[in-house]
């Protein structure tokens, strides 16, 4: 594998990219594979007269592996540079989760396949073509199977045509996490094998039985947005979120009520709720009501309470709240913890939503995904059988579905794959599966390729190249078209895959367009056709379920420590484990970076004689894994939590870490047609090794913080034994009742630049005058904050700690990934971090209650900044626009500013952190890469401010809301970050900073006059438990 891009290659590609963009013709030259790659594609979003160097352009695209998600790829000088969300896309609306942003790191991954390999040896392209031709023609008419990721639309059609033309093989699609259980459940419940589009818009009550819908489950960016809208306060009231789960997740942390149930008891709870709600529901027809009553006759609230460890009163209250809500939504538990109950569980969720009137509105079948477009795990099971039977002549692995890593260990895919007569991998990156293939052909990364991603009805997303491929290579589909010309000339009418996609897409959607070419370009520019139905119809319950359908559902009753496995929001199925950003992003609850971990409660640790960081091993389904235990205060007793994604073995050395959770899965497909893990008893055995776990904070210390709240029972009552060492009102909450009574009184509402608001009475003089009236220099007319003072507002009510902003900041501001050793030493370079504060209390019954609060912490751009006055070289100073500016070139590196920073947001370059040859491609050219000895920190994306300011100046106006966003604000799925000009009284940020809930962190203590306001997290006066 070539290690580096040669300088000459780089210049050549740059030149080609430039020429390509400048000429902007849409002509497509077929690849002359023999002589070299000189395909010239010119994707574009908006027409420009000429390419201007360093002026970014945005390409709308989408990726099969990301599903229903629109991307805008920022491209600079013909190179893809940053992942952003497509604001026009109806699902993510411009936002992205942390993991979704890593596609750019994948594109420039050092693991990319650069040369064709035959049995591990590099071969020429001519030879590749020869081998492919020979093998495929030899197998023609027999079993040529294709194993791909989540293909859809024209791409799916293309490969279906291919396997049909070749013989008896099948197109098998595989992703470790799929939503096809909805299709099987919907077929049972409504007789429609479709995956409904789950839409939380307009809800006022969300009950989740464990689905982490804010950070990893389903279309979580959309869910987070709608959930945040639900939490908007109107008339001192807002929607409510109840989470019943087995492990405190970051989604559960944000719930108004979080109830811990025993692993495996979710379905029982669900049935009990269904029985109660259906019986009292006014939204069901009599027939449906009777049908449901018949199905759930065996359920019982008391028994469910007993099995789950909750109280019947709690469950009863949830049921009442569901019934009382205007438009409640119930979300299921995650498939991985359901085992064999997946089908019944999801069917019950559909029925419960039906009883709540949510079918059509929240479970939209008018914008559903047909079962044919989702991945069924049965397919790969069948493929493995075929392989084991020696029936597969040629197996083509397309893209990087990586089943050798992320199929259940018991399925033994890797062994099966070796039994294919010949296997080919068209792969962008090396992974566990490609190394098993006889022939590895470099393929375009999704951002270099054409395609179509067609998930929900009405959501037809196009995938277009956002830059020229990194190396001379062709897209797999173009290889196939070339081959099929000789093997089966009638298969494809087009000369290239791009033409194929265009023809297919235009034929399906643009038949009525007056100008087909314009239609195609418009769609490319927009990212596809986004015309999802807003709402569907309510569907009647079909008679597909017999009376005993729910009969088999019982609590799993795991005796002893029960292992639950869930999808990692950071690594997913393991494809993002090779991303430095993901490895360095702390897990939301435990703060662990770079390692696999097993999260257990302190009590469980005590029972098993384990300590934090101690490595344990255990065996499940014949697979033994070892990893450190993390003791956590948020974890319920008796539950052991493990995440998927780590444990990659074929990747850059840095990313080969931890243990693979998929290896623990049993190989069978459940009734819902998916692989699922069931909570299992594990015996944890210490190996004797101790792992130094790298976290952003000191575990067990420093993450506790009592949150004083005015007039709230949380603050005044409860136990009298608060540890006052930790009482510091950095994070504040307020009850809705207090808001209705005129706002919090505990900490004085203090707005620094508004002279109309008096200070608290005992402070008759503010010694720390703001600079609003000062000239920026003596003797100059210019004054501070005219006309801009940039401020930010963060809503703590809707921040769910997902870390998307943190990753966006890494991408935008060229923050180095420092590695585990350095994180363990406390030298992570994140300009923005998510402070997680625990509030451990005992309620009146003596039960321990842990509140979890997330607080994004970035430079507060203090008006009276402690860091500025102590810098001896004036490398940091207060600029005219209220920013605490940082001049890297002037920094001598005394670190005094960081010492004096009360928020600890300054980051020092302890080394010149390495940017390897590949990583340099995605550094932002408008932000300098810092070297050793220099202090750095957040400056509210000053490069974006500058661009927006210049643009506004050219247009002879001031910057207004909406002109630009900071990187963190842009991606935040719940839109909890607002940013703008405080001096503009019409701006959102000005209004929010004067909200009743607004406070400035630590300002009442140390008068730093931060430019960031936080909106207090709200709580209901009467909560659960």
């Amino acid at each position, binding site marked *: 594998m070539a290690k580096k891009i040669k300088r000459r290659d780089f210049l050549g590609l740059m030149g080609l990219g430039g020429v390509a963009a400048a000429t902007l013709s849409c002509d497509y030259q077929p690849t002359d594979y023999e002589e070299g790659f000189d395909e010239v594609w010119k994707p574009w979003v908006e027409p420009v007269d000429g390419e201007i160097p360093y002026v970014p352009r945005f390409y709308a695209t989408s990726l099969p592996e990301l599903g229903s998600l629109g991307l805008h790829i920022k491209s600079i000088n013909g190179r893809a540079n940053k992942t952003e969300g497509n604001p026009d896309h109806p699902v993510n609306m411009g936002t992205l989760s942390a993991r979704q942003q890593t596609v750019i790191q994948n594109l420039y991954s050092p693991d990319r396949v650069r040369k064709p390999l035959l049995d591990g040896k590099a071969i020429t392209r001519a030879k590749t073509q020869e081998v492919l031709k020979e093998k495929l023609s030899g197998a023609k008419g027999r079993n040529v199977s294709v194993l791909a990721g989540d293909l859809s639309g024209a791409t799916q059609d293309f490969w279906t045509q291919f396997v049909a033309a070749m013989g008896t093989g099948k197109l098998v699609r595989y992703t470790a996490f799929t939503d096809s259980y909805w299709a099987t459940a919907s077929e049972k419940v409504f007789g429609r094998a479709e995956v409904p589009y789950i839409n939380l818009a307009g809800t006022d009550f969300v009950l989740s039985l464990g689905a982490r819908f804010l950070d990893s489950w389903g279309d979580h960016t959309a869910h987070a947005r709608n959930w945040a809208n639900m939490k908007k306060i109107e008339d001192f009231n807002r929607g409510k979120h109840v989470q019943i789960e087995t492990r405190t997740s970051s989604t559960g942390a944000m719930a108004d009520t979080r109830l811990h149930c025993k692993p495996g008891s979710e379905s029982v709870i669900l049935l009990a709720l269904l029985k109660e709600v259906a019986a009292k529901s006014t939204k069901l027809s009599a027939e449906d009501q009777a049908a449901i009553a018949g199905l759930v006759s065996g359920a019982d609230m008391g028994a469910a309470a007993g099995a789950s460890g909750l109280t019947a009163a709690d469950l009863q209250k949830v049921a009442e709240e569901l019934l009382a809500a205007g438009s409640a939504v119930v979300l299921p538990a995650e498939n991985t913890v359901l085992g064999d109950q997946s089908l019944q569980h999801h069917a019950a969720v559909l029925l419960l939503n039906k009883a709540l009137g949510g079918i059509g509105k929240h479970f939209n079948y008018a914008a559903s995904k047909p079962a044919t477009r989702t991945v069924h795990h049965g397919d790969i099971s069948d493929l493995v059988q075929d392989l084991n039977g020696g029936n597969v002549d040629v197996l083509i692995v397309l893209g990087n579905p990586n089943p050798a890593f992320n199929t259940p260990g018991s399925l033994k895919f890797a062994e099966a794959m070796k039994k294919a007569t010949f296997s080919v991998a068209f792969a962008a990156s090396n992974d566990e599966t490609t190394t098993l293939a006889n022939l590895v052909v470099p393929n375009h990364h999704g951002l270099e390729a054409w395609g179509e991603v067609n998930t929900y009805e009405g959501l037809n997303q196009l995938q277009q190249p956002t830059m020229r491929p990194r190396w001379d290579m062709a897209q797999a589909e173009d290889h196939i078209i070339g081959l099929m010309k000789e093997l089966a000339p009638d298969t494809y009418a087009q000369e290239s895959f791009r033409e194929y996609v265009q023809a297919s897409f235009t034929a399906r959607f643009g038949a009525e367009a007056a100008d087909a070419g314009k239609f195609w370009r418009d769609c490319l520019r927009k990212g596809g056709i986004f015309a999802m139905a807003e709402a569907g119809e309510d569907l009647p319950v079909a008679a597909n379920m017999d009376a005993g359908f729910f009969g088999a559902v019982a609590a799993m009753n795991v005796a002893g420590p029960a292992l639950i496995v869930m999808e990692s929001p950071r690594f997913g199925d393991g494809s993002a484990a090779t991303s430095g950003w993901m490895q360095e992003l702390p897990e939301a609850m435990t703060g662990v970076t770079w390692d696999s971990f097993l999260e257990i409660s302190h009590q469980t640790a005590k029972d098993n004689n384990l300590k934090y960081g101690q490595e344990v091993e255990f065996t499940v389904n014949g697979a033994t894994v070892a990893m450190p235990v993390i003791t956590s205060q948020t974890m319920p007793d008796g539950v052991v939590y493990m995440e998927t994604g780590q444990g990659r073995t074929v990747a850059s050395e840095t990313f080969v870490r931890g243990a693979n959770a998929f290896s623990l899965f049993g190989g069978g497909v459940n009734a819902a047609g998916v692989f699922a893990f069931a909570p299992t008893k594990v015996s944890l055995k210490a190996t004797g090794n101790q792992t130094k776990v790298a976290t*952003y*904070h*000191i575990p067990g*210390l*420093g*993450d*506790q*913080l009592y949150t004083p709240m005015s007039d709230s029972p949380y603050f005044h009552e409860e136990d009298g034994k608060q540890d*006052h*060492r*930790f*009482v*510091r009102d*950095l994070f504040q909450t307020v009850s809705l009742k207090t808001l209705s009574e005129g706002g919090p009184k505990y900490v004085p509402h203090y707005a620094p630049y508004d002279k109309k608001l008096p200070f608290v009475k005992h402070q008759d003089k503010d010694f720390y005058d703001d600079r609003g009236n000062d000239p920026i220099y003596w003797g100059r007319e210019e004054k501070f904050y005219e006309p801009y003072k940039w401020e930010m507002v963060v809503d703590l009510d809707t921040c769910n700690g997902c870390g998307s902003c943190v990753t966006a900041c890494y991408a935008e501001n060229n923050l180095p990934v420092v590695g585990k050793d*350095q994180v363990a*030493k*406390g*030298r*992570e370079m994140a300009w923005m*971090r998510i*402070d*997680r*504060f625990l509030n451990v209390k005992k309620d009146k019954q003596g039960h321990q209650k842990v509140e979890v609060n997330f607080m994004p*912490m970035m430079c507060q751009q203090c008006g009276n900044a*402690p860091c500025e*006055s*102590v*810098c*001896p*070289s*004036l490398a940091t100073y207060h600029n005219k626009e209220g920013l605490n500016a940082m001049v890297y070139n*002037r*920094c*001598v*590196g*005394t*670190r*005094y500013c*960081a*010492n*004096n920073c*009360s*928020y*600890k947001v300054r*980051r*020092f*370059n*302890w*080394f*010149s952190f390495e940017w390897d040859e590949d990583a340099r491609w995605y550094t932002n050219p408008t932000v300098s890469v810092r070297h*050793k*000895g*220099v*202090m750095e920190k957040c400056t509210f994306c000053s490069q974006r401010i500058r661009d927006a300011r210049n643009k506004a100046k050219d247009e002879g106006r001031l910057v207004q809301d909406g002109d630009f966003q900071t990187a963190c604000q842009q991606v935040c799925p719940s839109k909890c970050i607002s940013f703008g000009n405080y001096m503009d009284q019409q701006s959102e940020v000005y209004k929010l900073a004067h909200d009743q809930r607004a406070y400035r962190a*630590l300002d009442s*203590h*140390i008068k730093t006059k931060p430019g960031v306001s936080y909106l207090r997290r709200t709580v209901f006066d009467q909560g659960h438990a």
Partner: protein
Amino acid sequence: MDVKQHEINFSYAEITKDILSTLEKPRPTYWLMMAMIVGGLGVGVASWMYQIKEGMGVAGLNHPVGWGVYITDFVFWVGIGHAGTLISAILFLFRAKWRNAIFRSAEAMTIFAVLTAALFPLIHVGRVWVAWWLIPYPNQRELWVNFRSPLLWDVFAINTYFSVSAIFFCIGLIPDVAAIRDKAKGMRKKIYTFMSLGFDSSNHQWRHYMAGYGFFAALATPLVLSVHSVVSWDFAVSIVPGWHSTLFAPYFVAGAVFSGMAMVITILIPFRRIFNLEKYLTIWHFDMMARLIMLTGTIVTYSYLTEYFIAWYSDDVFEIFIFHERVFGAYQVPFLMMFGCNCVVPLILWVRKLRTNLTVLWIVTIFINIGMWFERFNIIVSSLAQEYDPFAWGWYVPTWVEAGVTLGSFCWFFMWFFLFIKFFPSMALTEMKEIADPPVSGDATHGKEAA
């Protein structure tokens, strides 16, 4: 007083010979020790070079704790540098006769300590190659330093202190250098001639010399108080809980004198033995110095207690927390080292019998040196480790690089001191002669005055 005040048991004629004997050709032991010192210095230089090449990350510093051993060393050495000027200037003005025997070496120690301290701001900055930006100089870019920054005040304070101390030291040397000049040959003679500024011991010159010396003593006196006050403001001016305290200036000055006197004793006791100078450096001198230690040690202890009182009295959660954590938290060991060595161990000195036992005294001063180093470590590190945001707390553990640089700094200091011993009289010939019997015939008691 039981200890004899100042028994002059040396004759005028012996002084020059005895004291200048230190300048004789070094013995093998000297070379051996010098080799060890230069070796240690090499370790320090190598560590620093490694740090410059790799980045500050080779030190144990991290995000909450941006200052550690280097700043501890810096404050420690500035503190050590306090005793010299105190002895030579303040005690001169107070006409404390016991200073005559010790002030020269104490003053030399001051200069070398400041010379050592001045290295640390360079060692601890991230980009030492641009450290000159901390000096205000006119430039076409109109870039200026930040006069509000205590670090800049440090630059001025240290430079002023170093230059004034060095000049004062050279002036004190003039009559002695003149005496050596008359005996030296070759290159040495030229250097001594230059340094003696043509001093020929005429009455006229003596009159001006004594007046000049007095003025310099008066000029140096406020610096004794200012330097460490300014250094303390590095901390006091910040808003870090545990640093932000108006007590710091007097507290640091007292601590500096405390540690400085301890260091003087630590050095003089072996020095006296090696060069057989028991006649000149008597128990009485050490008793006097020990008393000064007792005084400053008491002030230091009082300051510690005041800090705790104020933390409690302030009712500030952050302040209370920091002081609670100092005693009971992760940095308990440094705290106990500090409190034990600076407050408990020196109590021994209150027993006269023990403080006049030089072995005991020497061991106590070693403890004080250690304790004062830990005092600075404690203030700097434990405050930074746990500030306002509990999520951002972090622990700091020094690395071998910091240990190497610290070792190097001690060697650097002793290297200068060893060179000094061989190049200049370690006691002021003239001032010793002032208190000895002049070589006149007749009345043997003439001129003998009790100090």
